[in-house]
């Protein structure tokens, strides 16, 4: 029997994945500046990562909607 929890499950997966992506992008950006990249590139990097992040989000949502398995009914025991 199909569960109506599928969108909720997909949303949770997307949040986790976006958390990982955001962390990785922010780490790359902070590392770049820590290693000596000049401050003037800050806006450029922000825009690049924002665009990549949006693309990743679209990809994850599309991929999960398409491939996430059909769910059973939730029974807590």
């Amino acid at each position, binding site marked *: 029997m199909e569960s109506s929890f599928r969108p909720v499950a997909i949303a949770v997966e997307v949040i986790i994945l976006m958390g990982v992506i955001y*962390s990785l992008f922010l780490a790359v950006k902070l590392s770049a500046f820590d290693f000596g990249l000049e401050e003037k590139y800050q806006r450029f990097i922000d825009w690049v990562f924002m665009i990549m992040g949006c693309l990743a989000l679209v990809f994850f949502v599309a991929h999960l909607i398409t491939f996430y398995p059909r769910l059973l009914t939730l029974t807590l025991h």
Partner: protein
Amino acid sequence: MDSLTRFWTGQEVYIMKVFLPIIIGFVVLFIGLLAVSALSFWWRHYRLWYLGKEENRSDRGALRLKSLLAVTFGHLRFWKELYPGAMHFLIFWGAILIFLGKIVRLFSYPVGLTNPPQSIFKYASFVSEIGGLLVMIGGCMAVYRRYIIKPSRLETKPTNTLIYLWGAVLLMTGYFVKGYRIAIIGGSVVPDWPFWSPLSYLISRFFLILPTEPLNELLVWHRVLIHALPAFLFFAYVFMTRTPLQHFFLSPINIYFRNLKPKGVLVPIPNFEEAETFGVKEISELTWKQLLDLEACTNCGRCQDVCPAHLSQKPLSPRRMTQNLKDHLRREGPKLLTTPPDQRQPEAIMGTTVSEDELWACTNCMACEEACPVYVEQIIRIIDLRRYLVLVETKYSSDIRLTLKNLEKNNNPWGMGRGLRTEWAKDLGVKIFSEVTDPEILFWVGCCGSFDARNQKVANSMVKILQACEVRFGILGNEEGCCGDPARRIGNEYLFQMTAEANIEIMKRYGVKKILTLCPHCFHILKNEYPQLGGEFQVIHHTQFLTELISSGKLKLTKPINKVITYHDSCYLGRGNQIYEAPRKILKSIPGLKLVEMERHHNRSFCCGAGGGRMWMEEHIGTRINQMRTDQAIEVKAELIGTACPYCLTMLFDGIKEKGKEETMAAYDLSELVDQSM
């Protein structure tokens, strides 16, 4: 040939095909991470510290190790503030438990602990669960404090947010991995999962909405890509970049190499006669330990919260100074490393990274060093910077100029004639030390007791007590010179050494063995710093001596003083030399006196504002520190302020006048109170 093995989860897997790549991947990543960490440590930290001068901090290894373990695992210095202390304790121990549990489970398959899971596997699972829970609670406390309460001393940067977020993702995906695994196998192999993995079991109930095959697939994806790989990258980020989390290896190193001498003990300039420069002008003139201090600072701000200069709106913040110097090191250090020594033109610290107002605002009270959880040393660095300004650039205010001139000409900071040093004692029948038969003790009066009108009364009281107890004592009289504290704290090391060497020579000539001081600054310098110049004496502060006299019954206090008194711990007696109880024992021995403590007492005492040479400098910026301390005494409704330091007595006496409280409050030295009660 690879064989099919029934795994404890119920799956039949080709072990080599499935696990071998994981093990190889882990080993490669792990070795890679180790290599990156070692290289990064050397490149970004060690070679910068190596720029600094030599300093021996390798003595007493056993004591250092014991101290490191106690401070690190017991979080001894964190508990001064309950909320951040508990928060950090939970995060620290939670992380340790997660690590321990993980290590056991990571290597459990090759040693036969997993298929089926043995007891130790289940214990490791439980330990990780509890560890994760502790980190979650501590993490939530930290996030609440940083983003909701927002204490002023915390500076929040993007890297702080990253650490919280990344940590939360790793924690959550870690529980999810276990949850998926429990959902797959159910209770068939481990019926008591709810006990061994309570949180993961709870999460696994939600995963029962997934059929088995997708569950398996999600388990692999989450484990490898969403948990393990980000975990490795997290550690790589922590080791390679300069994040606050680097404190988990920098802080223990700094704690191990910490100063084991009493706080506030300065070191002489080596080879004074031949030295080409004095003090610290640029970053590589600090010692390697001072450079390590800069990097070990976690930017927590505890020092700032207790600094009397910062709290009275002076430009100084010990945290800010340390962080600015850290940035200076990271900016200038690599340039120095790539330039031949004879071509280096490093940027000066003063005027660019540290301002003169900041430098001179320090009262050397050591509150910052007392509060610091990782034992960063601030005082010696500040004095080193002062030494450069004073001895090389001769750049200081007119107040300081006058004080130094008075010390040089007349051997006292007031510039009063040397012959007037014994005026206070002329009618008291005090003998010169050389005239005393079999003297027990030299009474070192100090410049305040000799020349300052208010403090001469303290010296008078002390003499009366000594005579009443029939102590065989003498004074050096006009041969006594300034102990050198003002000169040394101002940064004129040359003048200090001249003064101290003269005093040592005189005392040795008279065969002085034991010295009684009125002043904690004299006490500190005679006890802890004169030995550097060959002056080894047994030094006792007058509160310690009075306590001994009272305990032995030689001194009986019978007249009551029916007042409420608060005791002000002077910095050089308390924090500097750990003398807190002797003065309180004296006060408790005086009948009628009721002792109340100010909010900041014992090792958290608030400076009177006169240390670090500031007794001789005008206070032009912000609130007067002595008034702040007087306010704290007024808050506890004290009628008397007891003190054991002439500087503190002067400052509190002035503070009471400035606050218009002379009718209801008075400041006394403890020896005066004892004299009144005899």
